């Protein structure tokens, strides 16, 4: 397990755990991001991270991206986006 902030663009990962307050967890949940869901990292530069979750692009601030723990899903995505 490692934080989402350390992912590379194009990586497909599974969300394992979300630290942070109830409000933030619920907010992410209603956008489709919850433990067990597979997401694709579209862009991960020095700033915020962009992921694709349930077909939508969601931008997550760097601080928050450190609190979302993810794990490998086995295969690599084909849609590598070079940041």
């Amino acid at each position: 397990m490692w934080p989402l902030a350390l992912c590379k663009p194009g990586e497909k990962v599974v969300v394992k755990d979300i630290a942070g307050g109830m409000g933030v967890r619920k907010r992410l949940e209603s956008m489709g991001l919850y433990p067990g869901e597979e997401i694709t990292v579209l862009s991960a530069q020095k700033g915020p991270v962009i992921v694709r979750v349930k077909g939508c692009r969601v931008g997550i601030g760097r601080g928050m991206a450190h609190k979302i723990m993810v794990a490998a899903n086995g295969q690599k995505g084909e849609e590598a986006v070079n940041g």
Partner: protein
Amino acid sequence: MDKKQVIALAGNPNSGKTTVFNALTGTRQKVGNWPGVTVERKEGKVLLGNREVTVVDLPGIYGLTASSIDERIARDFLLTERPFLVAIVLDSSNLDRHLYLPLQLMELGVSRLVLILNMMDEARAKGLEIDVEGLSRTLGVPVVTTVANKRVGIEELKKTLARELEKEHQTSGFPFSYPEPIEKGIERLSEILKPHPPLSSSPHNTRWTALKLLEGDEEYLARVQNSPAKERILSLLTMVKEDLEAELGYDLETALVEARYGYIKGLVSEFVKRKGSLEQRLSMSDKIDKVVTNRFLGLPIFLFLMWLTFKLTFSVGGFFLDYIDALFGFLGEKAALLVHLVHGPPWLASLLQNGIIGGVGSVLVFLPNIFFLFLAISIMEETGYMARGAFVMDRLMHAMGLHGKSFIPMVLGFGCNVPAIMATRTLENPKDRIITILVNPLMSCSARLPIYVLFAGALFSAHQGTVIFSLYFLGVVLAILLARLFKTLFFKGEPAPLIMELPPYRLPTWKSVLLNTWQRSLIFVKKAGTIIFATVVLIWFLASMPLGVEYASQQSIIGGMGTFLAPILKPAGFGFWQAAVALFFGILAKEVVVGTLGTLYGTGEEKLGTVIAHQFTPLTAYAFMVMSLVYIPCIATIGVIRRETNSWKWTAFSVGYSLFLGWFLAVVVYQVGRLFL
């Protein structure tokens, strides 16, 4: 009110909800605020059969956990006002996520639902085939397909809504249930909640409360704290939760979410067929995002677009400004002439010409600037770029203790602080919002430019540009420093984490861009009009009293006030009563500072520079400009600060700190400058 007259429209942001709303109600809309908060509330009328129905446009929301103002408003509206029918707009190409909201509404006990599968064209383009019938049968609610921006399916939608309004009873039950052990747990908890009305006003409500308690929702836990049966409920809650987690093997919160999304996944795999390859390719939006959110290109692109916005606001808006100004001058003269012709009292002519038309007019001349600023903003919003701007600025804004979303209101402040402060509504954290509002008036709005131009032109003709730029720069630096200071003093802690959806890029439709711009501009006119109207009458009165005195002369009450206030300004180097009065009148609107000096010195604005060059030195002129930049937000801004913070305390603080800071900085400039010059 007849319940059958209200339909609520709900949906995720970017589902095309506003387009559906516009297509349904046309221009018969009313924009206001939700009670107690300052989120825009839109209502419109639609004729369904022979019944006129009100459609309430709920804020765009993802769920109902009430983590932001928007979600709380939507939930409270659904629970307390109980609209007869709720129509939910969904993005057909993304049902995986968009079905979550209807599911939440069903859980809340909203039984009369109509699902609107919008953007069917995009779904088809993606190769998706949706079994609308099947979805409708399984969920037990009518499902309508639309392409709202092309008005496809709107008539069918109206028919469906009309039909649903005539139905007396809900036809089917709630289609979704949790795994059995969880359902049992909900039941156990519901039993104990039943005899306690605030927690269980209806059977569905009881189930919802039980569910929220199991999820650990802080708001509902707080409600239990007020219940007489608090201890029994809480101990049972702990027991049920522990039993369930032991049985499931992991935490309940996750289990509940998984069950909900699992159900949606089931629906989608059953009713949505994907033609062609399953592989998701890089969409056009992804490609554009690669460029505009790029770590090197993102910032320059953002700044360029901001520059374009300014250009549009000032050049095109400014083009109309002179004409409108002339129009008000003309109107004022004619009004005075008319009063003279009918042998009305001279005071009436003065009230109309100098007071009302002059005062209100001086604010309304900025309507074109406001209009074009909002036009640019609407375009950026409708295309989907605005979210990227906030995203790109996130890191820089962290230096101020705020996050990316605060940057947009700051930039808008260069145009006018009133709409800029209104734009803080997008911030979900109330603390971030208040800080952004408090420092916003430090952004040099377009009304301050005439002052800078006049004074810099009169006394710094060789370095006019540099001097004006230095004032804009000073404003930005002060805003950064004060945001940090207020953050440490009043609002400790991290800013809310940045989480925002980046909607797909879309070509905006002119109709909705213009409608949006028009509605926002109208609010500005209305609000500015009411506040300013009252103030100008008062100021005019003070300038005309006591009876028989020359209008706005030193012998008038306002002249007396000027003489009284002048000593306070003496340490800043401009302690003459005209300057004091100009700054006083300037509260009305900053550009009035220039107009007032014009009146008091009895010259046209062309020759005003010469007089000023006589009375001011470069040093005192600079101190005066610094004072004008900071000393107080104008009346319209004060009004909007009051409205948006919903607090007299913060309004008073904003006025207080800026008055002191403006005076203090002017004094520092003069006193320190004197040592060197």
